[in-house]
């Protein structure tokens, strides 16, 4: 039972971490808090649904959906955010807020306002036993995917030229541009990565719920925002730490709170978050940013 709870906690934390990481990558480069990140998740869910209905085999459908999320993220940058390049953080935030609202309306009218069932293969919803423990397949996949994605991202950021340029851009974009690295490529890559991460997170989220609806991305991304702020806005290790922390706390509270207090869980978690920020206003692992006199 305890093992099961821990697995659940880590798997939920992994999803939050992937989402928070996507937000942090974009924020660190362009200073945008992307409210439409949740809609990328929703879109991924619908692509998966459509592909499955069209008879595409499950693994291919998942791949297709995740690729679509990445492409959609890049397209979103091209269409909505590029004209805003250089605008204030507030304008960017509000643009993404409006884009998010618009996409929701499009999903509601273009597909359906009601949740649509997604046929998840039965082996994913099963469980397996190790010794006395019964462990769900879904959460296990979720943990494995999250960890693999984090390792792959770390490898990309450390070992490739573009990755190194992105880490540099997070600290001081102007200098990176002076080094002759095209800004568009860095920004497009940032959105591509955040889209990939949102796509993966969406798959894990859909797998555990077996349905998609127009507001699907709303709640997890809201949590991911909080995770990103707790970790230190714009800090990648902070986003991962914040995501896992939030997931673990949520599941543990869910498991331990008495029934009378359980509905207050989100309020308790978020109050805790604000308490953390009182002690560390820059987050757990603050982002490094240059300052000029």
């Amino acid at each position, binding site marked *: 039972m305890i093992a099961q709870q821990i697995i659940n906690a880590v798997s939920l934390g992994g999803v939050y971490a992937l989402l928070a990481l996507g937000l942090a990558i974009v924020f660190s480069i362009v200073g945008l808090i992307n409210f439409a990140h949740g809609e990328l998740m929703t879109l991924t869910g619908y692509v998966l649904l459509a592909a499955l209905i069209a008879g595409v085999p499950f693994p291919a459908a998942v791949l297709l959906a995740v690729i679509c999320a990445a492409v959609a993220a890049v397209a979103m940058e091209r269409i909505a955010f590029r004209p805003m390049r250089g*605008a204030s953080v507030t304008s960017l*935030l*509000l*643009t993404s807020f409006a*884009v998010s609202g618009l996409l929701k*309306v499009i999903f*509601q009218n273009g597909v359906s306002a009601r949740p649509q069932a997604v046929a998840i293969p039965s082996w994913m919803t099963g469980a397996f036993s190790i010794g006395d423990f019964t462990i769900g397949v879904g959460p296990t996949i979720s943990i494995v995917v999250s960890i693999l994605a984090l390792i792959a991202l770390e490898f990309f950021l450390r070992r490739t030229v573009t990755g190194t340029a992105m880490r540099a851009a997070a600290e001081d974009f102007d200098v990176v541009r002076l080094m002759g690295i095209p800004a568009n490529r860095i920004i497009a890559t940032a959105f591509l990565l955040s889209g990939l991460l949102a796509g993966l997170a969406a798959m894990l989220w859909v797998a555990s719920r077996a349905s998609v609806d127009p507001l699907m991305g709303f709640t997890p991304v809201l949590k991911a925002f909080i995770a990103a702020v707790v970790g230190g806005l714009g800090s990648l290790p902070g986003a991962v730490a914040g995501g896992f922390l939030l997931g673990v706390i949520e599941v543990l509270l869910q498991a331990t709170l008495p029934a009378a207090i359980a509905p207050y869980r989100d309020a308790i978690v978020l109050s805790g978050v604000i308490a953390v920020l009182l002690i560390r206003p820059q987050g757990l692992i603050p982002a490094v940013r240059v300052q000029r*006199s």
Partner: protein
Amino acid sequence: MAVMTMERSSARSILPAAFRNAGVDALAMIAALVLAALAIYLFGNAAMQRVVTYAAIMLTAVLGLQIFSGNTGIVSFGHAAFVGLGAYATGILTMPAALQRTALRDLPQFLAGHEMSFFAALTVVLVLAMLIGLITGMPLFRLSGSSASIATLALLIIVYTLLVAGREITRGSQPFYGVPREVGLWTAVAVAALAIVAARLFRETSFGLAARAAADDERGAAAVGVDHRVARLAAWVLGAVAAAAAGAMMAQFLGAFSPKDFYFDFGFTMLAMLIVGGMTSSLGAFAGVVVTVLVVEVVRRFEGGGVILGLQMPVLFGLTQGVLAVAMILVIWRRPTGLFGDHELNLLRRPGMTKGNPVKLAADAAPARAEGGPISVEKLSRRYAGVVAVDDVTLTFQPDSITGIIGPNGAGKTTLLNMIAGDVTPSSGTVSVGVPARPASAFRFARAGIARTFQNIRVFPRMTVLENVVVAAREVEPGLAAAEAAARHELARMGLEAFADRPAASLAYGQRRRLEVARALALKPRFLLLDEPAAGMNAVETAELVSILAAVRSERHIGVILIEHDMRLVMNLCERIVVVDRGRVIADGTPAEVQNNPAVVAAYLGSRTARARQGNDVQ
């Protein structure tokens, strides 16, 4: 006749020009609102009256949002939560006791059976909002920028969760019903009128000025003594009170509601209204609400589908939200400052309305501030990850003297100045500014009489030239009127009085540098720190600056410490020169002494040249 004129002019100086202007603006907006309401009351039907009532309630809420977001520049999602809290509190307080017993069986005893009138409930709600605003605001504004925005989002989720979970009090996610519907057109208009006055006047108060300055440039604001946390808290609390008032009216306007009515979509609507009109002014909030309510009223007719112009329209979900989103995107793209720009009506500042009271510039009467000791710096060091920018520096600066700090690029001059200004925390060592002040706090140092300018100019671009200086003057003058007079005086001193009502962003480079100096002098400092004041100025502008600085120093007896690369300026103006290289003081003395110091020559020209010169001297 003469007596009357005197009385009028004295009444003028008691009420600052900024408040007079704001008051007239507010009256104009209220007149427009009342006229619209009157027209609908006389000629409109009940449905139209409801639309105007709704608009007035939304106006109150959006003005609440504007008071906070418009002045501090922090987008808030949390104001929807205050509307929700106001609505539920009013609902519980005004509900008929008999109905309450059936609808809310488990209501705690102290909340039950109040059956208050609307205005009694409103009073309670406003006090409550003030308390909750204070409690939530204090932790919130340790954060800044985007983190603070996300924290307001967290607040919205917390309040929503509480409203849904607190079933005994709120009926959870089920509709809360049975609230008497007593708020009509005129109540809503009256409360909205108060909100207009509050929002329009707030931006001219010292809190409003301080919040706007910090939004434009946080470091610049700290340098003139602005504590941005206090300013933000004040804006947050007043904004929360206005939003809760809107909530109280909303409860009695709707009669029945549920927590999701005050959640994300509502917050979105509020923000869209504000953005469309223009976030930074109360005029923007006013116009935004009018425009969006009209658009939404038109769009709403299409939402249900049906046949329009011979076309079969489908049923569209959330069309109004979609239209608001598109409107918001278009406005941000095409007119980032909103449809009505970023300025107020400013009826009294229209061309022809300003009388341009000539400022007398006789003897510079501005006295130096209360006595205090010298600035002394002891064993001061600052390290940045491996680099030692300032290394064990001990110096004393007397008031009533001009000191130049020179040295090669990267010598640590600006870091030293920043530590003296309280802007950078020393890694070790102490800075004493002659009067007690908490260490390493830029705004407290500024209030203690240490004024400064920056290497990259930090004026407040969206505020007027006059406001830029008033922000600083407000920290030392007893009232806004006195601050305005002092600010006009400093502007005249710097030859900027003709630009007083223009936004600072419109000034030329040299003028902005002078504005920064005027702003620093408005603090009535004991010390003035100038970081490359002549950088980027041509010879004529530099000469002007030198004569102004010399005059200021001789009239006010303040200590000036300046960093400068223009050697002629430094040698002419300064009585003492401190040479810094690689974080250490390598020479300290009169210009003549320093010029002949071999270490200084070495630092500037390289050691081989220095040795060569020394060799020549010996020969």
